[in-house]
C-alpha cells in the first residue's frame, strides 16, 4: 500500500473521474434531491456510507467466496443482493436505534439500492484491483478508498448543484427549459468545468 496511490485515487475519483459529472453514475438522485442543500447533504452522506460498506463487503465476498468456488459469473447477482440486503438491514438498525438519524436519512436509504453509483463502484473495484482472478496487493484498502472518494465526489457535485439550483429558483427561465432541461444544461456546464482537471496524469 502506498500513500501516493491513495492520493491518486482521491484526485481521480473526486475531480477527474467524478461519478456524476464524467461517468454518469447516480444521476437520478443528482436531479431528484438537488433542489435544496440540506437534503442533498444528507443524501450524499448516506451514499458515502453505503458505498464504503458495500465496497468492503463485496470485496470480501468476491475474494473469499466467488474466486475460490470459481463462480465469477454470479458477481452481478451477488453484488446487487448484498447491496439490497445491506441497505435494508441498515434501515432497520437505524430506525430502531437512532430514530433522529432515521428521520434525516430514512427516505434516502430506500432509494440507494437502485442508485447505480453504489453497484457501479463495486464493479469498478473488481475491474481495477483484481487481475485475472487475483487480488492485487493492498487492493482491499484501495477498494474502500475508491468507494469513499467516489462518494465524496458525489457529495461535492450534489452540494454544488443544489447551491446553483437554490439560486435558480429566482431566475426567470424560458418555459420549455423549466425544471429538468435547465438542470441538465447546468450539469453540462459543471461537467465542462470539471474537464479542466483532465490534465492531471498519474
Amino acid at each position, binding site marked *: 500500500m502506498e500513500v501516493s496511490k491513495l492520493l491518486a485515487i482521491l484526485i481521480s475519483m473526486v475531480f477527474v473521474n467524478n461519478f456524476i*459529472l*464524467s*461517468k*454518469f*453514475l*447516480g*444521476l*437520478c*438522485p443528482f*436531479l*431528484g*434531491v438537488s433542489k435544496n442543500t440540506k437534503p442533498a447533504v444528507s443524501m450524499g452522506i448516506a451514499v458515502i456510507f453505503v458505498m464504503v460498506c458495500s465496497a468492503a463487503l463485496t470485496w470480501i465476498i468476491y475474494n473469499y467466496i466467488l474466486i475460490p468456488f470459481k463462480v465469477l*459469473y*454470479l*458477481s*452481478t*447477482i451477488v453484488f*446487487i*443482493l448484498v447491496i*439490497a*440486503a445491506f441497505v*435494508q438491514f441498515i434501515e432497520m438498525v437505524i430506525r430502531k436505534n437512532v430514530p433522529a438519524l432515521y428521520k434525516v436519512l430514512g427516505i434516502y436509504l430506500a*432509494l440507494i*439500492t*437502485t*442508485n*447505480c453509483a453504489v*453497484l*457501479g463502484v463495486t*464493479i*469498478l473495484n473488481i*475491474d481495477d484491483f483484481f487481475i485475472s482472478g487475483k487480488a492485487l496487493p493492498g487492493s482491499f484498502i484501495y477498494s474502500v478508498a475508491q468507494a469513499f472518494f467516489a462518494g465524496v465526489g458525489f457529495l461535492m457535485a450534489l452540494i454544488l448543484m443544489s447551491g446553483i439550483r437554490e439560486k435558480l429558483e429566482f431566475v426567470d427561465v*424560458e*418555459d*420549455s*427549459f*423549466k*425544471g*429538468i*432541461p*435547465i*438542470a*441538465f*444544461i447546468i*450539469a*453540462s*456546464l459543471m*461537467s*465542462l468545468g470539471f*474537464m479542466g482537471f483532465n490534465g492531471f496524469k498519474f
Partner: protein
Amino acid sequence: MKKLFKEFIKGIGVQNPTFGMILGLCPTLAVSTSLINALGMGLAATFVLMCSNSIISTLRKFIPDAIRLPAYIVIIATFVSVIDMLMKAYSPELNKALGIFVPLIVVNCIILARAESFASKNRILPSLFDGLGMGIGFTLGLSSVAFFRELFGSGSVFNIKVGFILEPVILFRLAPGALLTLGLLIALVNYLKARKGKSPIARKGGCC
C-alpha cells in the same frame, strides 16, 4: 389483440421511458456516443425487460409482498448476467464499448418500475408486450440522443461519414455534450407539447 397492441404502443409514445418519464438516464447519457452502442444497449435492455416482465408476471402470486423488491432484483440480475455473458461471447467489442453499463442494467429504473407497476399486476402476455414496448421506447429515446451526438461529435451516422458542413465538435463526444444534448432534447419535447397545449414533462420517483 387490440389490448396487447395498446400495451405495446404506450411505451413508444405517451409513456416513453426517456422523454415521457425521464427514467434510465445514466445509460442514456453514458453509451450514447454512437448509434451502434445505443442500439446494442437498447436491445440488451429490451431483452432483459421482456424476460423479467414475463417471469415476474408468472410468479406474481408466489412472491410475498414484503420481499418483492429483492425478489424482482434477483430475477432481473439473472437475465442481466445472461445477456452479459452472451455479449461477451458473441460481440466482445460491443461489450467493451458499453463496459460497466451492461451489469448496471440491473439498477436501470425502467425495468424495476415496470416490474413493480405493471408485471406484478398483469397477466403474462400483456406484461411481455409491455416489456417489448418499453424496451423499444427506451431504444428509440437512447438512439435519438446518440443520433445527434454522433452527427455533431463525429460527423457520421452509424459510423458512415455524412457530408457535413461543420467540423466535428469534440465536445459532443465527451460528457458535457451528453448532458447538453439531452437537456436540449427534453426542452424541445416540452416546447412541442406546450404548443399542443399539453403539460410539460414531470418526473416521478427518484431512482435511476
